[in-house]
Every structure is written in structure tokens, then in C-alpha cells.
């Protein structure tokens, strides 16, 4: 029982982080039909930025995180403008471009930051006794709270505000939205930037728990893809449910099956989902 609770707690924590990363990928896929292979690399960049600003420039954790997220947002806009825009409508072309971009960024980080892991100082230290049964790191709890907060804000913006309605209208019917006077090009750029912001948020929130290295990005992208397909392409709710599900399955798998195959569980789920329900849990449309 105690074991199960620990696995579930840890699963929910990991799941929330997966959901956060996957939301960014889903946003970009939903609006633009572009699978951003370099998503994890933006996460890594934000992680490195937040660590560097906190250490080298002595900024407090919150402002270093904000600066990191803003910088990655602008970096995302530059990528969209120079590399992604010419590929609209050709999803294979954009996939090739972002795949190459992922290799470039990963190797560039290796040259710039070295192979060493880096992390900003923890926001809080120590561990808390949960349910009177086991200890759980305080930084993990804080990161979980932050991830949940960002996800909530994102969902509110998407469903309750004017901006969210515009973005979703483009996702649903680009031509109609354009006829109704929405500047779809600008919406594209903004969505890509927002997707990058989500990656960056995940990066700055998780780096204190899992230090970044130049090569962790690809694992993060892959997990995000799995969660996205599991939840259904383009569905935000699907992302959240899919993320939590994956986190829990992975932890139960490690706990009760085999710890060596942790990362295979997700890919097996993915293939099963595609076989039995290709639209995922919450998806309506296929892209």
C-alpha cells in the first residue's frame, strides 16, 4: 500500500511535467501542423539560462526564470520566422527542418555549455513526510505546484480569453478564421512562440530537480510526442490526462515490472494506442 502510494505520487509528479512539455508540442501541432522536434532543446536552453542567470549574474530564482522564459520566447519567434514559416502546409518538410535543428542545438549546447549538467539552486530544501508514510523532496513538491499552476493558467487563457478563442478558431478552421479577419500568419507566429514558452516553463521549473545536460532534450521531446498521441493530436485535455497516465504507468512499471525498461513503457503504449484507437483518448481529428 505504502509502495503503491509512493509510485502514484511520483507518477503524478512526473505526469504533470510530461503534460506541461506535451502541451507546447500539441499547441504547435494543433495550430500549425508542425511537429517541433527541437521542443526538448528549447526546454534545455531555458534550463541552462535559468541556471546561468542565477549563478553568474546572481539573480534571484524567480527573475532568472522569467528572463529565461522571455529569451526563449524570442528565440522561438526567430526560429518560426526564419525556418518554419516557409514550410507551412508541408508537414514532412517542417519535420525534416526541426529534426536537423534538434541536432544542431544539441551539438551547439555541447560546445557552448560543455557536457556537464547544470542546475540553479533549489527554491526550497529538504523533504516532507507525505501521508506519514514516506519522504518526498520539497523541491519536487514545489515544482509540481508550479507546473500545475502553469497548466491551469494555460487552460484558462485558451478557453476563457479572446486570445484563446482566436487561436482555437485558427486550429479548427484556418480558412474560415482568415475570412473572418484573423491574421493567421501572426497567430502562427504567436502560437509557435507560446509553444516555446511552455517548453521554457517546463525547463525552468524542472531544472532544479533534474539538472539539464545537452543531451536530455531528445528524451523530453520523445515523451512529449508519446503523450500527445496518447491524448489525441491537438487536444489539450488529452495532453493532461495522457501525461498523468504515462507518469503513473512508468512508475508502476518500474515498481512492479522492470526498472531497465522504464522508457519503453511509453513507446509500447503509443503503439498500442495507434493500433486500437488511432485518434488517441480525446482526439477527434487526424492530422
Amino acid at each position: 500500500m505504502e509502495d503503491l502510494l509512493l509510485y502514484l505520487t511520483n507518477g503524478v509528479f512526473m505526469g504533470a511535467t510530461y503534460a506541461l512539455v506535451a502541451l507546447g508540442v500539441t499547441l504547435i501541432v494543433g495550430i500549425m501542423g508542425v511537429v517541433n522536434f527541437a521542443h526538448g532543446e528549447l526546454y534545455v536552453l531555458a534550463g541552462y539560462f535559468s541556471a546561468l542567470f542565477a549563478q553568474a549574474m546572481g539573480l534571484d530564482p524567480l527573475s532568472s526564470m522569467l528572463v529565461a522564459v522571455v529569451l526563449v520566447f524570442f528565440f522561438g519567434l526567430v526560429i518560426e520566422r526564419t525556418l518554419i514559416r516557409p514550410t507551412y502546409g508541408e508537414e514532412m518538410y517542417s519535420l525534416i527542418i526541426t529534426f536537423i535543428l534538434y541536432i544542431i542545438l544539441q551539438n551547439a549546447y555541447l560546445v557552448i555549455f560543455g557536457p556537464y549538467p547544470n542546475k540553479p539552486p533549489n527554491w526550497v530544501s529538504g523533504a516532507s513526510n507525505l501521508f506519514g508514510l514516506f519522504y518526498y523532496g520539497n523541491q519536487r513538491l514545489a515544482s509540481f505546484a508550479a507546473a500545475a499552476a502553469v497548466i491551469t493558467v494555460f487552460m484558462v487563457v485558451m478557453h476563457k480569453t479572446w486570445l484563446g478563442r482566436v487561436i482555437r478558431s485558427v486550429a479548427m478552421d484556418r480558412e474560415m478564421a482568415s475570412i473572418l479577419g484573423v491574421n493567421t500568419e501572426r497567430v502562427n507566429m504567436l502560437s509557435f512562440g507560446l509553444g516555446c514558452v511552455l517548453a521554457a516553463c517546463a525547463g525552468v521549473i524542472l531544472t532544479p530537480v533534474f539538472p539539464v545536460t545537452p543531451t536530455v532534450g531528445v528524451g523530453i521531446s520523445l515523451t512529449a510526442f508519446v503523450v500527445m498521441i496518447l491524448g489525441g493530436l491537438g487536444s489539450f485535455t488529452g495532453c493532461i490526462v495522457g501525461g498523468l497516465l504515462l507518469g503513473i504507468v512508468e512508475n508502476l512499471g518500474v515498481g512492479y515490472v522492470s526498472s531497465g525498461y522504464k522508457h519503453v513503457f511509453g513507446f509500447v503504449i503509443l503503439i498500442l494506442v495507434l493500433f486500437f484507437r488511432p485518434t488517441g483518448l480525446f482526439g477527434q481529428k487526424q492530422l
Partner: protein
Amino acid sequence: MQAAGTAKDMKKLLGGESTPWLIVLAGFSFLPLVLGPYWLNSAILGLFYVMMASSWNLLAGFTGQVSFAHAAFAGIGCYTSGILSAKLGLHPLLGLPLGVALAALLSLCLGALCIKMGGIYLSLTTLAFSEIVHIVIQNEYQITRGTMGLKVPFIVGPYSKVTAFYIMLVAAAGIVWLVRWIINADMGLRFRAVLNDETAAQSLGVPVMRVRLTAFVISGAMAGLAGSLYGHYLTLITPHIPSLDMMFHVLAMAVIGGLGTLAGPIVGAFLLEVLSEFVRQFSDKYHVLVFACVALVFARFAPQGLVGLAVDWWKKAMSGGRSA
């Protein structure tokens, strides 16, 4: 009708168009006389990449399906034939066809699963498949020796780079020839029809799914062959063969050389092989980075690749000459 088609194909195959290819092939077959062991090694690696990039191009360039499982199929080929020969003592030449067969079988299964959905789904599913293969090979160290790599016997006879070179040359020429035959034959027309306009192709009676699946399986089997030969040349196979890194190299070569052209992947493979030796002289750290930057510049500004550029330029020069 059928006979006429075949005769035409034969003519295409042996006619004037083939001459430059035969000259290149003849040129290559003299390389071992000129190159020392070091550069011969590079040439063999180049031939391996020619096989990989050409067969991936059949899929991505001619039918528009970006598969990320190509390196995984090479891995399946080399580990199948490698394990059979290293553990059960099967001769590599017998293990080789089994490796190819398993790669073909798995690509049939994978293709059946995701071809229908196509597009992004295909790319992401093949990506997941490729990661599974990579992780399983890495984890099942009792069978595969994991990251330490599995020692496998040399292809045939005592270790010799010259032997390996000629075997790889024959295999590479075979694969290029097969790709060429496919795209020139009826099937190639269908491929292009599928690439250009799926719905139109369907309405004209082209069985789109079957055509795609055929391409997927042929390409997977070719990767299996390339992988097995490569493994038996290296005599050491590691999870690096079925990895995204390898996948990137293959993709970059096809893109730089020119997707959807026959010569593109060949040019790309050898160019990058030479470029990598060149960059290596300065620092190993930068060689993938340089590759990737070159690939990005091509993908973004010249998606037709080197061969496409050359063709465009040639056409322009010809027409320019006429008008002047």
C-alpha cells in the same frame, strides 16, 4: 503489352542513360589500388551510407514518407545476422539473408500499423519504434552485449578491407540499380503519383496504401542488408547503428545530395564522408555540428539538394546558351 514494357525497361536500363553510371562504377572498382587502408575504410563507410541514404530516399524522396525507423532496420539486420553468426556459429553469408528477411518482416508489420494514417503519425510511430529497438538492444546485454557491442565474424574469409570494399560495392550498386529500376518501372510512376496527389492517384485506380507499403518494405529490407554488411565489416556492432544519430546522418546525406533524385544520396553520402574527415582534422567536437548546419542550409534554401541545383543550373545554362 507486358513484354513491350519490360523491353522498354531493359532498354532504359542498358541504354545510353546507363553509361555514366557504369563509368562511375568502373572508376570505383579501381579505388582499392589507389587508396591506403585509412581512406579505403572511409570509402567503405561511404558505400554503406550510399545504401542507407538511397533506400531511405526511395521512401522519403519518392513516396513522401519520412520514416525515422531506417537506422532501426539496419540495426535489426546487423543484430540478427550478428547474433546468429556470433552465438550460433552460422556463416555470415547465411545470416545475412535472415537479417534482411527479419528487417523486411518487421517493416511489413510496422508499415501495416501506420501507413494508413501516414504523415505525422507515420513519422512519430517509426520514431517510437526506433527508440524501442535502440533500448531493447541496449538493455538485453546478455544477448546483444549492450553498449559494449557484440563481436561478430568478418563477412567472408580472413579480415580484408579490399574484400569488404568489393562486397559493399556490389551491394551498393545493386541497391542503386534496384531503386533506379523501381522508379523507372510502372511502380515508380505509381510512387510519384502517390507523392504528387494522393487523392488523384486513388481515383485513377492506384492502390495507394499497397504502393506505400511496398515502398516501405523494400526500403526496410535494403536497410537491413546495408546494416548486416556494415556490421560484418566493422566486426563489432553496437546500439549506435540503430540510433537517431545514425538516422540523422542518413537523412542529412539524402537532403544535402537531393531528395527524390537517384544520384543525390550517392553524392551526399560521399561528400559528407569526405567532409567529416576534413572537419576531423580540426576537432572532433564540431563534426556533427558542421554536418547539421550544412544540412539545415540545404533543407531551408535549396531543398532540391546538390544534384537538384546542378540540374537546374544545367538546364538554365542550356536554355541561356540557346537564347543567346
